[in-house]
């Protein structure tokens, strides 16, 4: 897994300065990056590349090595082997330059409780050498972005966990970074807040050309916001790519269709319809889903899905059936993740990531 296959271009539009940088200067790139604690290998020969202007999601079970990887990217922990390049620099040798251009939200972010949110941000601004005249405006702006402007002048002692996390995101954005690294950014944020934060991340990528690396356990959020995803297990990257790519890799190479035909609801699990659906070339399995009163059709290989749909439509016309729904089910990251992690448990460390 030395190189990443030429995947589709990012869904997001890129701003001009970001697009101008050649592909060789990916904002984050690691080569055989390794971290050992004694005999324990926390990160095992990791090759990772995050491209300019994308949102990259890191998944993995507890202790998989996500935080350790992030700490090495920031120069906060020295790698035991391999190299990392962040904004083109080695964080182990040029930590200041890297930290000046990378915003970081730690997983259990904390603030000085005796200071207000605004004062905490002011300290960060000073440490970043922000000019005094633009500091206040900048602080007001980031507080607005994370929806904390109303509570900015109370001591952070009194903040809830989610408010601290929002302030942490504001803190990471304060220096107007080129790269944003967020370790579990939304774990304690309320559902509506999460939507706002994810929108914010998208707009930062779209308008500012920022590159974002985030780790999360909330697969739905990752699927909705990330361009590409890397799945970690025991310090190794066992899956990498867009959600459809991962689905092809781990989803048993199957595509899934949802088919509903009027009249079926009364005759649940109609054997005639079942036989019809099963007769198409490429259909691997047909299941009746009572909850949605529809058929769940698994197609294998995945690229036979188009042929199956075509055949179905023809059959519907020929027989005069009333098709009420035909939907290609998007692979869920949840299933992919489950398969990937379970596969890892079975295969042990011999699993090779193919692209």
């Amino acid at each position, binding site marked *: 897994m030395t190189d990443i296959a030429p995947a589709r271009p990012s869904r997001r539009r890129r701003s001009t300065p970001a697009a101008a940088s050649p592909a060789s200067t990916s904002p984050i790139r690691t080569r055989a990056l390794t971290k050992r604690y004694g005999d324990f290998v926390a990160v095992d020969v990791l090759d990772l590349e995050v491209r300019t202007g994308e949102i990259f999601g890191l998944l993995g079970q507890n202790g998989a090595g996500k*935080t350790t990887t992030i*700490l090495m990217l*920031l*120069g*906060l*922990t*020295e790698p035991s082997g391999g190299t990392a390049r962040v904004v083109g620099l080695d*964080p*182990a*040798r*040029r*930590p*200041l*330059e890297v*930290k*000046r251009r*990378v915003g*970081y939200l*730690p997983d*259990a*972010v*904390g*603030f*000085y*409780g*005796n200071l207000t949110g605004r004062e905490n941000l002011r*300290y*960060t601004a*000073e*440490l*970043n*050498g922000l000019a005094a005249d633009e500091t206040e405006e900048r602080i007001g702006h980031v507080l607005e972005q994370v929806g904390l402007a109303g509570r900015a002048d109370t001591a952070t002692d009194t903040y809830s966990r989610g408010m601290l996390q929002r302030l*942490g995101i504001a*803190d990471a954005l304060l220096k107007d970074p080129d790269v944003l690294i967020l370790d579990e950014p939304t774990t304690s944020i309320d559902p509506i807040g999460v939507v706002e934060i994810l929108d914010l991340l998208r707009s930062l990528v779209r308008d500012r050309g920022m590159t974002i690396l985030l780790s999360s356990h909330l697969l739905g959020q990752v699927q909705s916001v990330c361009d590409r995803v890397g799945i970690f297990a025991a310090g190794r990257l066992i899956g990498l790519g867009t959600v459809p790519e991962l689905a092809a890799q781990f989803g048993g190479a199957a595509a899934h269709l949802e088919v509903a035909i009027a009249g079926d609801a009364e005759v649940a699990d109609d054997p005639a319809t079942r036989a019809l659906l099963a007769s198409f070339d490429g259909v691997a399995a047909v299941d009746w889903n009572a909850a949605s009163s529809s058929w769940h059709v698994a197609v294998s290989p995945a690229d036979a899905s188009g042929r199956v749909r075509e055949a179905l439509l023809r059959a519907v016309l020929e027989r005069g059936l009333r098709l009420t729904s035909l939907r290609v089910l998007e692979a869920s990251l949840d299933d992919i993740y489950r398969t990937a992690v379970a596969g890892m448990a079975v295969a042990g460390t011999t699993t090779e990531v193919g692209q």
Partner: protein
Amino acid sequence: MTTDTRALEPGLEGRSAGWRIVARKEFSDHISSARFIVLLLVLGAAAIVPLYFASDAIRSVASQVTDTRNAFLALFLFSPSSVPIPNVFNFVGIVAPLLGVAFAFDAINSERTDGTLPRLLSQPIYRDDVVNGKFTAGLAAITVVLLAVVGVISGFGIVRLGIIPSPDEVVRLLAWVVLTILWVSLWLAFGLLLSVVIRRAATAALVGFGVWLLVAIFGQLIISLIAGVLAPVASAATAEEFVSLSALSATIARLLPLTLYQEASAVLLNPSVTTVSTPTTVGQWQQWQQQAQGQLLSFDQSALLVWPHLVSLVALTAACFAAAYIMFMRQEVRA
């Protein structure tokens, strides 16, 4: 496991003043903290109370002998004969370590428990800026407290007793303040070391104050026991033996930093002190003055006398600070 090595990043050396920003923030935290106010009040009261009781004696000395030299410094040297309270410099010698530990025991570990350390270290500053800044801030807070206390005592002497310090006395007093800051910074460095090594601030505070108690109360006892065994001065048969055993005994006593500080204080504050012991009552004082007629030490002679003490204190402080520094640089960011 230091990754933030300045040598590797020469281009940024000039720009980084991270320690100053850290120090400024920590200092403003210190002076607005409850512990600062409490320590200021306690030390202020501790300086004023003995002075109040000793003032009658000092005034009588001042009126008896019109040109008593160094009457001003007597403010710091006298203990009241009426109540059992140590004089100012002894008292500071005992209490100052508390000051040092109090301003440092939670310097690093509280950043860990509050979860602010990874955030702080992900800002563009060197890792040692954090320790350096915190040490500097502690030193500044201590200096403020000590200057306030010395100011109160001097003000009391000038206003209430009408004793105006001579230039020589001012120099000696300032030298003593510097010595005391040095003495406290040893404990500050020790507190910093504890805050790096011990993950819980409460445990670090307990250990710090425990060591302080040990030194303040049992230190001299233990040292004199050791000296009694190794250098039994009383059993000396000949004069040479007596002299060499006394010297050995004094050397053993100096293993205790408190002895270093007290000896140096005595010499700096009292021009007539050419040896270790100090007059602590008015009677002794007058006796010493008479004995020492015409042979008071000049300031630089006194300074020369305590030079080894100063060097030893600086070395001890540097050792403590270096230990804290190195351990912090090697620690993982995560607790």
